[in-house]
């Protein structure tokens, strides 16, 4: 898969309260959740982004609560994929289970500026900047995770054998 968009950078340890504050968890409607995506980190975030844009986090992205509302809000807001130095484990599970593409790259964060456009090629395992053509490797996705993505998430994956 190819994901192309502008990059929005966030600090280390972006927790799920920063992605979707608990005060909005009285609904699971994706559209309502998306309207508040990243609100406590950047109140203007949803007004600035365009469909296809990419979130770039630091270490431990998605730490904190298990709320699947977090990847739902990101996906529904139109973000095509999330790249981070590392992901917290429940967020990592949730993203693969519900179909939000996520990638790990240790070097990208320091190497590019907010607003730069990049292209992620998941099958080639590369990230390329549009203007300068610089290329970065993404960490390989474990085969089981690739299978989850190919099947369209966990529920469709288990439906195959259930």
């Amino acid at each position, binding site marked *: 898969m190819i994901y192309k968009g502008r990059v929005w950078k966030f600090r280390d*340890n972006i*927790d799920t*309260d*920063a992605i979707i*504050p*608990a*005060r909005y*968890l*009285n*609904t*699971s409607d994706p559209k309502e959740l998306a309207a508040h995506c990243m609100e*406590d*980190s950047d109140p203007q975030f949803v007004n600035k982004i365009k469909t296809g844009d990419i979130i770039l986090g630091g*270490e*431990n992205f998605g*730490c*904190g*609560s*298990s*709320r*699947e*509302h977090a990847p*739902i809000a990101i996906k529904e807001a139109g973000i095509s994929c999330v790249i981070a130095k*590392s992901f*917290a*484990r*429940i967020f990592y*599970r*949730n993203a693969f*289970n*519900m179909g939000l593409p996520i990638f790990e790259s240790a070097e990208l964060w320091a190497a590019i500026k907010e607003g730069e456009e990049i292209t992620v090629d998941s099958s080639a395992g590369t990230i390329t900047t549009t203007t300068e053509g610089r290329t970065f490797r993404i960490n390989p996705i*474990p085969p*089981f995770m690739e299978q989850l993505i190919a099947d369209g*998430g*966990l*529920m*469709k994956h*288990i*439906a195959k054998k*259930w």
Partner: protein
Amino acid sequence: MGYTITEKILMTHTDLKEIQTGQLINARVDIALGNDITAPIAIKEFRKAGGKKIFDQNKVVLVLDHFTPNKDINSAMQCKFVREFALEQKVTHFYEGGNVGIEHALLPEQGIVLPGDLVIGADSHTCTYGGLGAFATGVGSTDLAAAMLTSELWFKVPQSMKFIISGNLQKWVCGKDLILYIISRIGVDGALYKAMEFTGETISKLPMADRLSMANMVIEAGAKNGIFPPDAITKEYVEKKAKRKYTFYSSDADAVYSDVIEIDGSKIEPQVAFPHLPSNVRGVSAAGNVKIDQSLIGSCTNGRIEDLRIAAQILRGKKAAAEVRLIVVPATPAIYKQALQEGLLEIFMDSGAIISPPSCGACLGGHMGILAAGERAIATTNRNFVGRMGHPQSEVYLASPAVAAASAILGRIASPAELA
């Protein structure tokens, strides 16, 4: 090569004869938990996948504890949705209204989770049950849906970190201080994807309430699970509560650990996590003059009867400072009743406290204790992220019930030793 307790519990929930760290396995689930925030998505996913009947009505647990008593119409709708599902599926362990307690205090108290169990919960603090010697981990709603449908879930066998804690704890130091200290040592991702196993002479004497409180916060170091090998203290806690068989597992002498960390518990003073990370910890003596607007004593971390007793011991005959809102949240109806019978609630009321019904509300900034811009709370909860308890410009400081009670009286972050 031997196995850790975590590996043993995972392996016995598969048909495999051997497993190794990093391996992906499908394991059978003993208990699958959801709440009023996470269960609605799980139920929708369950139905979307064609689910008609949950795998076992005794093994799916639904607890409406987050935004209850219903804080608004949307929350009421979410609870109604889960209630209808629970009734339709004849879920044995469905809790709401006067039965509801904060899930991670409620499930051990009611004997629903037991040593040796494999527990998943669509709530990150599901790791609490590691205090009993169970493998317990937080997952998302889709994971819960898959488990409700198939009785199984995928896991990666984690590496284990071993923490050996020795020495007698100082006065007023409890499990909460130990875990805050450990998180400050290893960082908020110091145990990412790993199991944290707690052993040593201090641990072997540590009461169950403290073990549950420590296991509760391993997620704050990024861990998959925390675990206390079960012993005589575990036996005493579970034997009257259990209504089914349970198993005590222990780590083999030649089990392999990614890290072994030794800690002298006698050197640790009461700890305080400053905003905005649970790892941003200082000893209370180095807290400085931090004025507070609210003190919250409760939550799945520290809302047990033992916690309330400590707070009451400090608050007895004293008043919370005029500018401090003191909120006490007994974590379950049984704890509430026990506190009433022991006269603790009277002590709290005389000190000027608000006594809340059991609810997660205040801890996650849901309701019943929201902070305004610029306000500061000391809380016996588990997270102090930006905006966790309310306005993004409010601040949360994490500490033990003893420190929260002393701080309420003095109007600033303070050690109980200052009141002696």
